[in-house]
């Protein structure tokens, strides 16, 4: 039946959305290349049908209705495809923000879920969007630290525990040597980035 595959794709989009919002770390399942291709094929098939139906001059109500339903199917397929891609692009946006527009490709592969989950176009999009964010945050708005934490700050200084070795960091209060499992009392603004990257844990 026409529209069945698109339905599946919408369910996949819903699953993607749940997966991204449900867990603490953002993750993106595999791009459903096969499904997208099948739907696109279906659209061109429908298109041929529509053209054929249009040519039927002696048509009565029946074929007019057929033509209309065909158009609706095509439109629905398009809507489903775009919705799927939009959902994924929004998650990509979130990933890019979380990493402060740094080269997210490296991070993705480091974190285990390799960039094979993304379609080539999505990889390109993510790269360009990350570039956009780093341009934006490095400009006049540098002081604000636009990609910083969106929870209101409570203390200037916080206790952190080191989860992964991160070498030495230099702050205006001295040098810290971040060795795994050690604890420090540091200024939050100094280590914000390390917390986001998962090196430190706020206590």
């Amino acid at each position, binding site marked *: 039946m026409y529209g069945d595959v698109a339905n599946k794709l919408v369910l996949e989009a819903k699953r993607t959305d749940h997966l991204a919002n449900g867990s603490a770390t953002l993750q993106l399942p595999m791009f459903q290349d096969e499904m*997208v291709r099948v739907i*696109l094929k279906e*659209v*061109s098939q429908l*298109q041929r049908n529509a053209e054929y139906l249009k040519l039927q001059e002696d048509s009565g109500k029946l074929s007019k209705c057929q033509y209309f339903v065909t158009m*609706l199917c*095509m*439109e629905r397929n*398009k*809507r489903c*495809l*775009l919705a799927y*891609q939009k959902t994924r*692009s*929004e998650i990509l*946006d979130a990933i890019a923000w979380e990493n402060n527009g740094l080269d997210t490709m490296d991070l993705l592969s480091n974190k285990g879920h390799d960039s094979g989950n993304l*379609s080539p*176009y*999505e990889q*390109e*999009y993510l790269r*360009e*969007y990350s570039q*956009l964010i780093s341009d*934006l945050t490095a*400009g*006049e*708005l540098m*002081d*604000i*630290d*636009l990609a*910083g*934490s*969106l929870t*209101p*700050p409570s*203390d*200037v*200084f916080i206790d952190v525990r080191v989860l992964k070795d991160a070498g030495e960091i230099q702050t*205006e209060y001295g040098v810290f040597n971040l060795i795994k499992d050690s604890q420090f009392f540091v*200024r*939050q*603004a100094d280590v914000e980035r390390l917390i986001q990257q998962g090196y430190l844990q706020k206590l």
Partner: protein
Amino acid sequence: MDINIDDILADLDRDTTAVGSTPAPAGDDTTRLDDSAATVAADYSTLVTHWCNERVAPELLPYPHTLMARVLARLAAQIEHLETLSTGVLEQTLDRSAKLPLLCMEAELERLKFVVRSLLRCRLGKIDRFGLYLRQLDARSPGALQTLLSAQERVYYERHSAILLKLFNNAILRHMPAEMQAVDDTEGSVSMIDEPEWARFVFLYVREPAPDAPDPLLAVDDHGQPCYSVNIPELGEVVDLAVGGIYIMRYNVIKDLLMDGKVVLI
């Protein structure tokens, strides 16, 4: 620790006012909210009002150009000031009494940065959501985006829509029949342009007008209270919003009052 909190506050006041003496860049005011005297405290409360309004309103509100220019300039100056102070403090003895005011100022700075960051991120989120709607708005009345968005936001908006469109085109649209390749089609069964939810309910507080500038729109209700009258079209009803009152209304009903700064969203 026997430090008088008043001293610290006085210290802070002096520091912030010293920074506040930077001349405010002149420019055209876009909203009535900007009209208030450019003192530091007033600017901060205006900023917080803008922030609340932006977070609650369903649509993108005009960018407070002059206010933000002032706030950002002061922020930069304060960061620099703090840096010189803290290096000075470190060279002297590491005495707690000298560090505490510094700590307070840093905390305050972090808070201000948070408000600005949250405001801007909220706006960027809305720009992403209503990208196509903004495009339509721009086509309808050229120049509207100039006041609605800041320069950086405009750059962001242009670039993000461009790469998003490229993604859609590459992945889907170019495999479609030619007449179905548009992303801003309003002819089909469902409009593809996502508009802000104009009829969303919002909480609002009616502000008191400044005493020296009486408001011509202000009427007096049955109980002798000053109020603004709004018309709710779908009920065909006129409602009085008393000054100082808190109401729940549909956004489109009170939009004009909000733009004039007569009510604030909470």
